């Protein structure tokens, strides 16, 4: 079999075989619907990303404050009774023993 001749024949056959250019019904509507769907998904994912970033920032701030509070309190003399300390702190403004120095 003459392979080169066969190749030529088949390429000529392929050249004559023009593919159809028909488009399925309402194909453009399908594409537009897909694009709209994706745009909504992009907006949703943008929200999710922003919220995730905000949550990460909040966690960082909480961690920093926690660390700062821990080290700040470890430097000062701590009392043995934590509940008494908390009560004193909460009621500090209403402490009747506090005197206001009004002398000029």
């Amino acid at each position, binding site marked *: *079999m*003459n*392979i*080169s*001749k*066969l*190749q030529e*024949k*088949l*390429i*000529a*056959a*392929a*050249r*004559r*075989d*023009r*593919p*159809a*250019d*028909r*488009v*399925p019904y309402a*194909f*453009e509507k*399908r*594409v*537009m619907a*897909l*694009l*709209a769907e*994706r*745009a909504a998904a*992009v*907006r949703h*994912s943008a929200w999710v990303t922003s919220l995730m970033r905000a949550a990460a920032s909040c966690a960082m701030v909480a961690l920093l404050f926690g660390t700062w509070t821990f080290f700040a309190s470890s430097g000062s003399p701590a009392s043995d009774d934590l509940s008494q300390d908390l009560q004193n702190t909460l009621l500090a403004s209403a402490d009747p023993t506090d005197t206001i120095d009004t002398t000029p």
Partner: protein
Amino acid sequence: MTLPGSARLDFSPVRHSSMIPPMERTEAELIAAVLSGDSASFEPLVVKYSPRVFATARRYARRESEVEDIVQEVWLKAFDKLRTFRGEAPFEHWLMRMTVRTCYDFLRGHQRNRESSFSEISEPEEDWLERFVADPGSAAEDADAAKLLVRRIMEKLSPSARLVLTLLELEDRSVKEISKITGWSVPLVKVRAFRARAEMRKILARMAQDKYL
């Protein structure tokens, strides 16, 4: 995922751009409208160029569902990358380059049928081959069997060989054009075209061996 236009995209059927009907606007106006956030202006472009994109995709994929997937991907890519279209060349050229590249990606992802034997050749194809063996002149090029046979052989080629043969031999494009479409250098296109022809001859030789030895 980046979408063209920093403005919020609007897919509502309400017309924008001074309420000009989309079909009366030029291509450049439609593209500018899409880039400024009016995504509905993309539809006339899809309507106008889909036949061409479908015809190209049908050269590389046989099943209609695969063809539709390719074309859909082309349009989604075109929408995403519309900002990169600078308007120096016609939109159609830019789109066809994207189509061919998407088809090439498709071929690279679907290489499963390449190693099959020629035992599944249909009777009309076998008859056509036998006619060719008996008298090469009597085997008509426009016979359906020849078209089926060449499609079968093209499916067995490597993706790069199929792409370069399709562009060079079937679509009659120049080496320079192919270089622009594929992004390969001119010498690389020439090398790949040479190798593609050799690959095709090798497949034909294997087919002849399977059938006649």
